[in-house]
């Protein structure tokens, strides 16, 4: 029989990019595509200790049903960790354990969005968030963003053009895809606008701890100003992505709704995984582990920046991120990143064309480059090959 899917699904299609990137899993491909952490940095030996520890200490409880809100000890540990890093004042009772921060995005859509509600976001913004929200059929309103973050005057203008603005989705630290970090002034100004217009801010912060120069500015959730901020975090980028454990922090009146909606989505997040992470946090020094990750990624970022400087043709510009996993390159007007990808793949080099990160499309001349997943010498080699492809394309256009 022909399955009669919901009309809502019309907004959701298999990403051609994702299909394309399937081939990047072959070992000969130098991939600047995914946002994966480097597996050689996982604390495997420590985790082996943790696995036995949890089961000996907790017994069968580590495998039983648990509450939708999550393991109380883990919620407390997360609140403590965040409050010491971000200057926030989260209470354990306001932390909801999610099955990765992707679930935090999905639940946000389910809690807040009806058809044609407006979601305001940076332009460009995180692809996974676009897809999560798109399932609830909102209208995306892109707000122009520069190197200091979202532009407040543009935000006001965008809100003025909205009919039912609901959510403001932002990644203020080492943003995916651009690597940009918002200045403190911008943080205050955007929060102020959100408060004035009654917008709920979704602050997505997977990369805040991956800072390679200076310090990460304060989280929006830690700043005064009366705006409502829901803060999403995850262990995927600083620990192991396969565990699928993230969290969100929300004010009480919203927290309850998230819990109800999560209960309908998957009852709760794997009890075992929650216990394992908690035991790791208690027994080992996650900050030391993050420091090791930071050191490796910083060197990889530097390797990529050096290679770009020497290999990319004039007319191509890029961001210089102070943290995170990505940088963002802009090709001369009229040069297609999609075309560049097709040619780069012939040279076994992959990246993600930037237009996917604009909910309303366009910007065909942009590209996202990940620098965390490849060793330095492969970064140099890959950028050299990519540079050759781009020189050819730019020259072709000039001629």
């Amino acid at each position, binding site marked *: 029989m022909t399955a009669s899917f919901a009309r809502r699904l019309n907004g959701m299609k298999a990403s051609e990019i994702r299909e394309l990137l399937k081939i990047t899993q072959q070992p000969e491909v130098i991939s600047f595509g995914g946002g994966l952490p480097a597996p050689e940095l996982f604390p495997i030996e420590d985790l082996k200790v943790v696995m036995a520890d949890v089961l000996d200490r907790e017994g069968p409880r580590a495998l039983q049903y648990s509450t939708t809100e999550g393991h109380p000890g883990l919620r407390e540990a997360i609140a403590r960790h965040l409050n010491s890093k971000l200057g926030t004042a989260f209470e354990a009772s306001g932390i909801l354990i999610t099955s990765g921060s992707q679930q935090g*995005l999905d639940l946000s859509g389910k809690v807040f969005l009806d058809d044609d509600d407006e979601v305001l976001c940076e332009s460009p913004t995180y692809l996974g968030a676009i897809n999560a929200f798109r399932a609830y059929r909102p209208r995306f309103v892109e707000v122009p963003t520069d190197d200091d973050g979202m532009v407040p005057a543009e935000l006001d203008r965008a809100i003025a053009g909205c009919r039912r603005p609901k959510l403001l989705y932002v990644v203020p630290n080492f943003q995916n895809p651009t690597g940009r970090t918002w200045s403190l002034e911008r943080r205050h100004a955007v929060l102020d606008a959100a408060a004035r217009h009654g917008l709920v801010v979704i602050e997505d912060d997977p990369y805040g701890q991956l800072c390679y120069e200076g310090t990460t500015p304060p989280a929006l959730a830690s700043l005064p100003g009366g705006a409502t901020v829901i803060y999403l975090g995850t262990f995927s980028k600083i620990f192991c992505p396969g565990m*699928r454990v993230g969290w969100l922090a929300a004010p009480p009146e919203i927290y309850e709704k998230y819990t109800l909606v999560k209960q309908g*989505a998957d009852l709760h997040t794997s009890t075992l995984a929650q216990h394992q992470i908690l035991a790791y946090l208690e027994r080992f020094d996650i900050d030391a582990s993050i420091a090791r990750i930071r050191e490796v990624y910083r060197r990889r970022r530097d390797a990529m920046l050096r290679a770009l400087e020497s290999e990319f043709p004039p007319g191509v510009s890029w961001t210089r991120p102070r943290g995170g996993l990505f940088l963002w390159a802009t090709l001369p007007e009229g040069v297609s990143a999609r075309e560049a990808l097709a040619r780069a793949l012939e040279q076994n080099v992959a990246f993600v064309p930037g237009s996917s990160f604009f909910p309303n499309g366009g910007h065909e001349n942009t590209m996202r480059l990940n620098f965390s997943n490849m060793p330095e010498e492969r970064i140099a080699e890959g950028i050299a090959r990519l540079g050759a492809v781009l020189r050819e394309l730019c020259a072709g256009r000039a001629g």
Partner: protein
Amino acid sequence: MEITIDRSSREPIYQQIARQVRDLITTGKLPAGFRLPPERRLAQALGVSRSTVLIAYQELRADALIDAHVGRGTMVTPSEAAPTHPEVEQELPWRQLFGAAVSGFQDPLVGDLLRLTERAGAIPLSFGMPAPELLPFAELRDLITGVLDDTGPAALLHSPTEGLTVLRATLAQMMAARGVGCTPDEVLVLSGSQQGLDLAARIFLDPGDTVVVEQPSFIGALQTFRGARVRLIGVPTDEHGMRTDVLESVLSRFRPKLIYTLPTFQNPSGSVLPLERRQHLLALSRRYQVPILEDDPYSELRYEGDPVPSLRALDPAGNVLYLSTFSKLLFPGMRLGFLVAPRLVVRQFALARQTADLHSNTLGQWVLDRFLQGGRMGDHMRAVRQAYRRRRDAMDAALREAAVPGLVWQRPQGGFYFWCRLPAGVGPAALLARAAEAGVSYLPGRACFADEPPAEFIRLNFSYPDEEQIREGVARLTGVIRQETGHPSTAEIQAASTRPIV
């Protein structure tokens, strides 16, 4: 709307309700136009009589804070006199910000129930969980602690949205033992079957669509469908499950998008749909081109009689989407279940899942795969079946011994539950309160119906408590039922009466 009742307070309950609603309105937390829950629903949720809520609403109406509109319910009245304090930091109007889907998740019943059972000393007959002492902890412990030696970082990395490839193959093999031929790419791993219900709702249902459910049905499914803002049409059941003879007229009249059924050891009724009805159901699904969502958590837990093939096993046309879970067989906290469906549907589930949570915990999938591959499931299942059969018999014997007049049940051949019809006149709200006082919990039958139930039922679980707890729990509960029989409170009678409109 958060309202808490303090039964130890000297303030009458109707005044407690009126006071709290008044506060919510005057502080602006319930905005003008906010629709209050119908009296009956609020009464049910709070465990008070409908007349109590009625009086509370009357007070609020007299204060001109709320107003009743025929067809639209009771709403907060707009008031120019409502105090506004511009200098005070205004709280966001949350009710207006939440999406409409959230209103489907309002039912606080389950949460309240869990809180009741957390009282020390209460015997839980309300759960739907396997007995932890019967689960193979030592074997799983060895697998979990050894998995990283085998896999290295792979068990900590992202894995495919559809599930680990090895696990999908193992599950396809397992399905062969359940009489279902399927290929690994027709299998999708889920974080429990609740996720399967949620994804099915996302994929198939738009607001206003119709879904057919059994009357009664699984409470978690009803909540998920309500959250999807669909119309639920209940098909009556008898001791043999869904009345497929009634289903036909439902299908022709309502043209539903989905038929949701739990045909084997149903939750809550414990019934098994006989073969002829299964075939009838499948024939109707083909004739009306409506897919069946078959939920099958319990079929492996049969304590007597011959197995009946699943709908999926009987369905050559691919109309059946088959959901199952390990939460009733192994440890539920691992959150692992699966879907068997045509490739196109699996693909669509995977796409929806990409946006929902990417994939299930990778390490848990490795461990489950090793456990199933190790051939340990067979021994484990034999052991739990024996234990659960004894528990079932203990519950049956305890109910017989109590011999409460008018209390009717059927001994289930498998699964986790006894479904008992209460004697006429026992008020469901009063019974719940009395049972909590007596230190025993159960699931009130009302929660399992898409609309008004034909009678009052309770669901009793026998898998989680041991035989001694079962005997004691049933004794406490039947004692309370006996006391309540024939003595419905005035409030319950009032609540059940209809006031003439004059």
